[in-house]
């Protein structure tokens, strides 16, 4: 398991390649990259600033990666979450899952993203023309995370 919180950008391809290097049991790698959008509800955004609770974020993400491991047959997981100021078009978050068969890798990647949205202690502030504004949590994100508990 690799969990990293960092200010710098990441290389999604290199991270995916690292999970399969030197092994032949991996049959599926799913890579999800979350990217900063330049508009929100039709309004332009100059940048996002992500605040986080460093020690808890690392522990919370690691707990969910462990939960994913106990739920699906995974051969590797990498989660990287950036913090600080991020401009439109830049990467925010990376989840890479590796497994023998695609179902496990797809499901685990989606599970991890749904939980990152609602449980990992990160907060986004948007820079707009009128000033900075904290992003409000979406009920659709809570619902997306909730469906994993119901199963």
């Amino acid at each position: 398991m690799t969990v990293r919180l960092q200010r710098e950008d990441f290389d999604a391809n290199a991270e995916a390649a690292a999970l399969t290097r030197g092994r032949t049991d991996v049959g599926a790698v799913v890579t999800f990259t979350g990217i900063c959008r330049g508009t929100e509800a039709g309004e332009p955004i100059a940048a996002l600033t992500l605040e986080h609770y460093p020690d808890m974020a690392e522990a919370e993400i690691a707990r969910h990666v462990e939960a994913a491991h106990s739920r699906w047959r995974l051969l590797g997981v990498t989660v990287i979450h950036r913090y600080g100021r991020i401009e439109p078009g830049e990467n925010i978050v990376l989840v890479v899952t590796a497994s023998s068969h695609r179902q496990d890798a797809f499901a685990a990647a989606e599970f991890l993203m749904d939980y990152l949205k609602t449980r990992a202690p990160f907060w986004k502030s948007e820079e707009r023309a009128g000033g900075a504004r904290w992003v409000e949590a979406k009920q659709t994100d809570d619902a997306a995370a909730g469906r994993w508990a119901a199963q």
Partner: protein
Amino acid sequence: MKILYFAWVRERIGKPEEEIEAPAAVATVGELMTWLAARGEEYAHAFDNPRVVRAAIDRTHVRPDAPIAGAREIAFFPPMTGG
């Protein structure tokens, strides 16, 4: 104990962290929020809708009825918007 604030809770209170000694009668996270809210205008503003403020004890999410006895670090923050 150490209290941490994040995002708009931090902005409203005006500091990222502080050491506090709550009275013994303050037993739960919810009671701690009520006690903090009475400390001044900035705290009252941060906790004016305590149902939207989330909490963690020693880096684990907790509900308002969680006991605070033995806690080293308690954090208050808005619903998370990462990912």
